[in-house]
């Protein structure tokens, strides 16, 4: 269990590094995808709510520390996103990436709209349509399409974890002759 958490943390960290160093190289029309938001959604979808919340909290905290002045806002939204996609855990087939794609689109839309309200609308920049067209909508589409690329490596990683965990659990129960207590 601990191993998995550490590996997830490392994955988040890696994506975070990619986001802040190569972010400007990924720009299309001045828009970068929000890669960190994808993580809690994919992990939540593949492993359930708990992992979604955990990954979302870490990713959001890293994002906040680096970018925003309001510490905790992104981690709140990201954990909620992870929880939301965790609802669909085991409801659909695991190779169906359409659900995380839709959830990513919706949560990114909400997240960016909230950031618009906080950063601009409260500073009397009321032209929502412009901001929506120029920033919010392109970012949602770009981020959602990144899910298609990132989903498969994460699923592969997740399968590796599951196999190892099942193996460990089996050998553990063989030694102690008790079923795994923490789940």
């Amino acid at each position, binding site marked *: 269990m601990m191993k998995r958490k550490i590996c997830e943390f490392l994955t988040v960290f890696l994506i*975070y*590094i990619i*986001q*802040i*160093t*190569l*972010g*400007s190289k990924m720009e299309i029309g*001045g*828009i*970068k995808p*929000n890669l*960190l938001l994808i993580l809690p959604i994919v992990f939540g979808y593949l492993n*359930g*709510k*708990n992992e979604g*919340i955990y990954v979302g*909290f870490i990713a*959001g*905290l*890293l*994002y906040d*520390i*680096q*970018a*925003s*002045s*309001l*510490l*905790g*806002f992104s*981690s*709140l939204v990201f*954990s*909620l996103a992870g*929880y939301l996609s*965790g609802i669909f855990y085991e409801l659909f087939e695991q190779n169906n990436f359409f659900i995380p794609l839709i959830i990513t689109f919706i949560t990114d839309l909400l997240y960016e709209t909230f*950031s*618009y309200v906080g*950063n*601009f609308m409260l*500073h009397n*920049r009321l*032209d929502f349509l*412009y*901001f929506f067209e*120029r*920033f919010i909508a392109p*970012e949602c589409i770009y981020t959602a399409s990144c899910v298609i690329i990132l989903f498969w490596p994460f699923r592969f990683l997740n399968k590796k974890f599951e196999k190892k965990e099942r193996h460990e659990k089996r050998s553990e129960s063989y030694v102690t002759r008790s079923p795994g207590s923490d*789940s």
Partner: protein
Amino acid sequence: MREKIAAFFTSKYKLITVIIFCILLMIASLFTDRLATPLKAVVSTVVVPIQKGINYLGLITNDKYVSFEDNKKLREENENLKSRLDDLTEENNRLKQDTYELSRLRDLYQLDGMYDSYKKTAARIIGTNSDNWFTTFTVNKGSNDGIEKNMNVVAGQGLVGLVTEVGSNYCVVRSVIEDGSYVSGQLIDSGDKCIISGDIKLMDKGIIKCSGFNSSVEVKDGDKIVTSNISDKYLPGILIGYAKDVKMDSNNLTQSGYIVPVVDFAHLQEVLIITDKKKSGD
């Protein structure tokens, strides 16, 4: 069934704890910076060296790629350049004499170019902001290199922005084209003041807004605009850009228009941080 309910509740409670924690963090960070600063320090000590490494790797691969490609071209160029070198040496000698003369004359007029006399340190951009709203960027010099908050940042010929945040091995620079950034500027020849403000809508066109010119001032396209001497954070006389389309406002009292900055913000790689700070009253 019972297990299912238990699982549901645990994750629900976890979510509620996380939400409460986040809201507390948000409220706390509205009032104080103390919470974020140590966290930032911890993260930056790990992240910044990695960023520097990746940046360095990128530079190396780029160099290698270019050198393979241009090897032949360079050899030819070398021949041409050698012949030009002789010409230039001669010209250089002549120009040197001119500079001596110029510096002597400058001393005479006590015009010792303000701009050159600022102490500067070079720094490389190693990271950008991760969201799309802002254009702050991270630079590889920090308080260990003597960088302080509110130091001016220039690149090549013009003003880039201001240091807004300093860590031990990095600092964050906010550019003048960013939304919500205000600089007090003036026309270089007449000294008429204006306010220069970044606007997110103009960022794509690469221009910034200027406003508040007095109605009697005549501003032509291409007039040089520099930081003014009354600005409290920016040093005076740094070139910001050239005026464009300055027109009378509807109130007939002020004029406003746009400025084309001299710095190419889209392709910025290295910047110079001026380590002299403006001495303000407080």
